């Protein structure tokens, strides 16, 4: 009898979990830590819900959304027109919600005497036009380029906003994940890399200038949310259609002051208040 009760209980438990719904979140590696933290906190508050978070890159997440294998796609870049078209072909209507902000920091080795670069100089470096640190008053050393794999939103964002859609130099060594880029630059005295500002450990942030005449700005919480840091961006959640039910609750919680505070705790930059309120799903 006891055993039957136990089995019945188990079945009921499984069933109720199934009822509460299994939400999967997939995509951007930049966002994966934030997604996990949000999921953790949300599940603590709502014991019935099960949320699975995985990374893989924004492109991966968007492809998963289009192929119908995830409920929420995390992306560190807006979807491309091409992707909207593909989604439409498959009967998916992506709905975009900006959930946090991020700055793209440019990483240098701590011993590198160069401390600031303009956007044009960065473009020159990453398109392979400028190949030596001596151009910026550094020593006569070749610049070693590190970047992200081409499924990364950071790759696409950097390409769009810094390279103006030109190609990366073929010499760019592409690594899986911002952590790998940071690790590489921390070991390579003449290396340069880029990635979300939350990741810079053991490397130095390069101050970035919009152009020759403007001021050099270091990527910090204030400069990014205030808009003075030139390479910053919104981070998105994409849904298939306007979210309802638990998905809606989840995203509205993430946008709430409480959710945004969680973002800040794990080194992302919260949305300015009025934008967060505007993004709430009614």
């Amino acid at each position, binding site marked *: 009898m006891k055993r039957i009760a136990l089995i019945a209980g188990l079945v009921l438990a499984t069933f109720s979990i199934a009822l509460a719904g299994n939400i999967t979140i997939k995509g951007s590696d930049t966002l994966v830590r934030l997604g996990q933290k949000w999921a953790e906190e949300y599940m603590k508050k709502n014991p019935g819900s099960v949320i699975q978070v995985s990374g*893989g890159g924004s492109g991966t997440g968007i492809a998963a959304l289009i192929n119908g294998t995830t409920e929420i796609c995390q992306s560190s870049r807006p979807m491309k027109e091409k*992707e909207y078209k*593909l989604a439409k072909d498959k009967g998916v209507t992506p709905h975009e919600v900006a959930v946090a902000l991020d700055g793209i920091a440019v990483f240098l080795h701590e011993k590198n005497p160069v401390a600031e670069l303009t956007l044009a100089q960065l473009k020159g470096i990453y398109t392979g036009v400028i190949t030596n640190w001596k151009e910026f008053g550094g020593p006569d050393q070749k610049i070693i380029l590190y970047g992200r*794999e*081409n499924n990364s939103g950071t790759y696409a964002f950097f390409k769009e906003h810094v390279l103006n859609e030109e*190609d990366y130099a073929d*010499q760019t*060594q592409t*690594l*899986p994940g911002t952590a790998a880029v940071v690790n590489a630059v921390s070991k390579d005295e003449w290396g340069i890399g880029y990635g979300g500002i939350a990741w810079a450990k053991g490397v130095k942030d390069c101050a970035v200038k919009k152009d020759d005449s403007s001021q050099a700005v270091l990527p910090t919480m204030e400069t990014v949310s205030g808009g003075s840091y030139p390479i910053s961006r919104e981070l998105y959640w994409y849904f298939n259609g306007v979210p309802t039910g638990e998905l809606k609750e989840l995203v509205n919680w993430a946008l709430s002051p409480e959710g945004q505070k969680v973002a800040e705790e794990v080194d992302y930059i919260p949305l300015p208040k009025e934008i967060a309120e505007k993004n709430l799903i009614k």
Partner: protein
Amino acid sequence: MEKYQFKPKSRLREFIGEKFIALNALAALIGILLIFTFIFKEAVPIFTDREVQEEASLSKMLYKQVYYEGREPKWSWQPNSTVPKYSLLPLFLGTIKAAIVAMLFAVPLAVGAAIYTSEFASRRMRELIKPVIELLAGLPSVVLGFFALVILATALQKTFGFTYRLNAINAGVALGIAVIPIIFTVAEDAMNAVPKSLRDAAIALGANPWQVSFTMVLPAALPGIAAGVVLGFGRAIGETMIVLMASGNAAIISAGFTESVRTFSATIAAELAEVVFGSPHYNVLFFIGTLLFIFTFVINLGGDFILSRLKEKLQGRS
């Protein structure tokens, strides 16, 4: 004695057993065929679909392309560019470079170890060396890749002063470690398979152990060693995780081994997760998969052929 004799009933059992094994073999064969068909099917649009060909035709994969006005045409792998470019040449070069370094590193070590264990080591030594090297084969490649990424790369750069930390040599050495057990096992087996009668004959003619090893056993086992090398080469070409982590993944064309390389397999691993099903990029990745499949298949076939020739030769059938 009686219990070793077959009873009539066991005839049936034997029949069923035989058919069961044959069925298993057939299933494996069909499985391989299906896998190949699936991979190839996804690559076919490159040859048939106009739209796909516009972005990634075979000629675009093989020749230089101009993509900015006023700039030199070049071979380049930039599938996510505004004008996608799918040159296979840098990837092919990268694959070959990493494999060559792997072989240069692994062959002397593996063959040397095989000669030592088979010819000179005491029984106790042999019983120690063999399992240790074969254990190496069980090392997950991701662990080797991580080792190469974090430790080996720094050590090599400090020693040789490479400009690029992650380069063909770094990836090749790590690949070599993965390949050593394959070459060692096959080579050692080949030398062990040299019949005792041949050794006895050589000794009877007054040869010392060195002469026996290097003038008799080694030449006789050479096809087997070659087969091991070929199999190892096949593995070096297809291995993914190590090159993904340790090679730097930059698709450049150069003659040197101190620059980063991007290999076929690493490209598939890095990019397949991101592409949308059915896009030209997706088809190209499967085309690369087909190429890899054919490469390794042909290489393994060659290895098997050499190996079977050796067996025939040693058994005096040729």
